[in-house]
């Protein structure tokens, strides 16, 4: 359940969910971590006094500055009238699904229409032993299988596919069938008969431009341009400001360098990551980055800075 304005803990690298995967009577305790880095560079907000700007929450009525523990979640039942719900109440609705991913069905990974996939998370063994984890990963990967279930995470139910790659389990949230529109929902015209000659023209063009995937195409040129501009200004020592340590906004989380890859490697029980983290790039946001996003992006900025 998305909040309109989410007060998220600053660490995007924290585990999102811990619980148990079950298949048959076998239980696999796991923790979920994001499997992708946030997009782009987190530009910082600077005020007119050249000091960093931070966000805070205030009550819209009395203007009181609020700490996280003075903020609750509510649902607007009519204009201006809210029903407050607590996390405990939300979890109590589906206590089992909030703690357990019960895999009762296994399907061929290729059987899942890619349109369904929404977001990927790595699963890290969280119990005393990782044998059940390794066993499930081994058997699913070899058989190109995915386990399907629904579970509740952060007050929202997800359909989820658990699959394995390189001995590592991944949870990929799937969209529910009613979250995908059909061509008829959109109002597209019925598919007419096509003239063979018209189709052939397109087939020829497709054949002419058939190539292998090149991941370079997936790089983001906006961030590259941004980085070039920044490098040029840095060389010329133009517009450089200093933000004293104690003034850096709170989402810097005490200046600890967090890298998703390092966190994952540590959690998986390995040493360092196999490859150095790739150079960060992506689309910098036009708007001021939201607090949580800014925090998560720190790692990419740090990598570049180093």
């Amino acid at each position, binding site marked *: *359940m998305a909040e*309109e*304005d989410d007060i998220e803990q600053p660490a995007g690298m924290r585990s999102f969910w811990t619980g148990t995967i079950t298949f*048959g*009577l*076998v239980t696999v305790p796991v923790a979920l971590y994001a499997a*992708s880095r946030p997009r782009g560079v987190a*530009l910082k*907000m600077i*005020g007119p006094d050249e*000091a960093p*700007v931070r966000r805070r929450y*205030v*009550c*819209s009525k*009395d203007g009181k500055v*609020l700490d996280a*523990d003075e*903020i*609750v979640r*509510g649902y607007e*039942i009519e204009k201006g009238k*809210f029903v407050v719900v607590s996390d405990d109440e*939300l979890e109590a*609705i589906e206590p089992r699904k909030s*703690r357990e991913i019960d895999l009762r*069905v*296994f399907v061929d990974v290729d059987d899942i229409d890619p*349109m369904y996939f929404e977001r990927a998370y790595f699963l890290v063994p969280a119990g005393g032993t990782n044998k*059940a984890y*390794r066993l499930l990963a081994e*058997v*699913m990967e070899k*058989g190109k299988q995915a386990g*399907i279930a629904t579970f509740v995470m952060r007050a929202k139910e997800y359909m989820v596919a658990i699959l394995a790659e390189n001995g590592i389990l991944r949870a990929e949230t799937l969209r529910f*069938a*009613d979250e995908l*529109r059909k061509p008829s929902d*959109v109002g597209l015209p019925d*598919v007419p008969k*096509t003239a063979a000659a018209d189709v052939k023209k397109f087939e020829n*063009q497709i054949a002419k431009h058939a190539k*292998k995937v090149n991941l370079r*195409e997936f*790089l*983001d*040129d906006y961030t590259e341009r941004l980085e070039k*501009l*920044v490098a040029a200004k840095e060389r010329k020592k133009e517009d*450089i*400001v200093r*933000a004293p340590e104690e003034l850096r*906004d709170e989402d810097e989380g005490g200046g600890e360098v967090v890298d998703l890859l390092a966190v994952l490697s540590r959690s998986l*029980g*390995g040493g360092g990551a*196999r*490859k150095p983290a790739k150079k960060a*790039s992506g*689309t910098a946001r*036009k708007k001021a980055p939201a607090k949580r996003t800014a925090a998560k992006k720190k790692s990419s900025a740090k990598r570049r800075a180093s």
Partner: protein
Amino acid sequence: MAARAIWKGVVHVGTLQVPVKLYTAVVDHSVRFRLLHKTDKQPVKQQLVSAENDETVEYAQVKKAFPIARGRLVMLEKEELEKLEPKDSRDIEITRFVNHGDIDHRWYERAYYLGPDGDQKAYFAAAAALARKKKEGVARWVMRDKSYVGALRAEQGYLMLITLRHADEIIAADALKPPGGRPLAQREIDMAHQLLQALHDRFDPEQYKDEYRERVMELIETKAAGRKPKVVKFRPKSKETDDVTDALAASLAGMKKRTARG
């Protein structure tokens, strides 16, 4: 009921052109919550303040800066940032065609339907050709000041455009070392394999429903009516055994019993 198109463009397939309209293909049914002040139940709002003296700062006064090192930033003027934006265009350029499945689903971000914008003949011919060739196009376009990379696919005779994540957003599974330990016993692998086979089925997404959403709305109604919601405590299943081999054997035995009973 026809949906509203969010954008119009022209797909360029080599020398051919297909004018299209873009429609969002995913809908979000999430229950929306607001953040409220605990004591007076009024919505909260965000405020920007200077980290130096907690004085409020108007959004219009805020400048952007790029962090280059700990505590060092390069200021960026609005005009400088605007200059970096891609040039406006209506063209959806197809740079190459790749085989179905070559772009892993982990790259897919958000799906859009394309609908014909005038020339229906070209639109449906392009969709038919993509399906026959079992290919998808790699597309590049600029929409609302942002550049996108996407996959152009044929689905049920229609064209779809799916935006792709950027290269460094994805952490490849092989960049990580899998958890290690003593080699697994072949007997356990065999048993786990049998268990998975017994649970194998076709993927049927219609079978899974977001029941939680309705239950949340029930909770809200209960509380709105001034009644106390029922709070159920989680009780873990009585664990039969912590031993993986025993658990597998018991699962398989249970499975057989069920089958025997018919």
